[in-house]
């Protein structure tokens, strides 16, 4: 199977004491990867590199199906939800519409996608809520909906369950587990070592800016199954999430 994204000889320096150095990492389409490692290991830096936010000083990060596209075009295939996401000024709907407008999606299609994405994260009817009036958990879910509404090929989540209560965790994991069925590759960082197993995710372990083990520890995916993309954005029957 052709890889979705690969990193080669990547080196990113941050200050004098830290550098992320990855010789080779390849991610396959429609899979879930869990990024684990202690604080300061380089998880967030790796996620930002995968999000193509800044060209590395050394090495390369390339999206295999889009090598002829510009950086901005490639970036539209990838979405990153940060650990403490920033919601843009305005309403929840404005936030979800931002990326869609950039892709030329307007009118009824835009509205339909927003409604579905909010339903997926259990925030039906939140369209007109002011972004600055939401609770921490709601902010996290709006940020996830804002990413899902764009239907990215690669969804990057930086500790997505850090601010989610136990009740919502199960629904969130159920949603995350279903995303590969819709053609999405998910990479999420976590400190919960049981979570990758629950989700059947392949582990990427990182420490001191280096990968410890690049081979998948948990193989969930069977390439003979689920080869076709499913219809997108069927609301998840989520309680709380």
């Amino acid at each position, binding site marked *: 199977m052709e890889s979705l994204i690969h990193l080669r000889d990547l080196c990113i320096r941050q200050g004098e004491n830290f550098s992320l150095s990855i010789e080779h990492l390849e991610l396959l389409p429609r899979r879930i990867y869990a990024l684990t490692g202690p604080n300061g290991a380089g998880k967030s830096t790796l996620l*930002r590199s995968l*999000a193509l*936010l800044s060209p590395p000083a050394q090495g390369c990060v390339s999206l295999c199906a889009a090598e002829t596209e510009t950086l*901005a075009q490639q*970036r*539209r295939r*990838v*979405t*990153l939800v*940060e650990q*403490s*996401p*920033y919601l*843009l*000024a305005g309403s929840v709907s404005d936030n979800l519409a*931002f*990326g869609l407008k*950039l*892709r030329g999606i307007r009118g009824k299609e835009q509205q339909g996608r927003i409604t579905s994405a909010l339903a997926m994260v259990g925030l039906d009817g939140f369209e007109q809520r002011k972004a600055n009036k939401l609770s921490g958990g709601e902010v996290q879910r709006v940020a996830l909906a*804002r990413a899902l509404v*764009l239907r990215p090929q690669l969804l990057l989540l930086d500790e997505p369950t850090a601010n989610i209560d136990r009740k919502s965790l199960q629904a969130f994991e159920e949603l995350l587990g279903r995303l590969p069925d819709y053609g999405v590759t998910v990479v999420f960082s976590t400190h919960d070592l049981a979570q990758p197993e629950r989700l059947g995710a392949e582990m990427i372990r990182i420490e001191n800016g280096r990968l410890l083990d690049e081979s998948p520890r948990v193989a969930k995916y069977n390439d003979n199954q689920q080869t076709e993309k499913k219809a997108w954005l069927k609301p998840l029957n989520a309680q709380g999430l």
Partner: protein
Amino acid sequence: MDYLFESLRDAIELIFAFDREVQATVWTSLYTSCAAIVLAAIVAVPAGVLLGLTRFPGRRLLVTLLNTLMALPTVVVGLVLFGVFSRQGPLGSFGLLFTPVAMIAGQMVLATPVVAHYVLAAVKGSDARIMNTALTLGASRFQAGVQLLREIRFGVIAAVVAGFGRVIAEVGVAMMLGGNIRGSTRTMTTAIALETSKGEFAMGLSLGIVLLSVALGVNLFLNLLQQR
């Protein structure tokens, strides 16, 4: 003390009598300052954002220069541009000296560093996640910069208001480049200086009250915007 109170009463009477000369002077002040601040904002807002977001050799020197230009004496700007617009100057053939255009040019030079400095401060003080959020949602760097401006709009408005305050209250440029010509380039500040020197204290005071009212009005407008 009676002199002050009588002058104040006369000044208020002059304002409410809608004196034609006062009206013409207020109008000249307002439109030259507004034109100057619009032109300055067109240059200074992108410059402030660029300085805040990019790193290049000489950037620190440029920021230091910008901060120095904030304290630029108005008469020095007036003097330099007088040389540029005078008959022997490079733009002398256009006959712009002692016209509102020359005043607007001078006031623009005064306001640009002020606006750029405050926009730069707003960008530096903004949430570092804004740019990354916009980029990761598919924006180009330019589109992300535009979104950043939307997010820090109150800082940008405050920068423009600070620049407006600088130009509407200045005397040097208006006097040297405008020439204080009645009905054409006489502004509130140059008229205050002139009327007071003629002993028309009430007239000067009435213009001073209008000037303060404009400043108050602009700040009230800013407060209203921030509360929305």
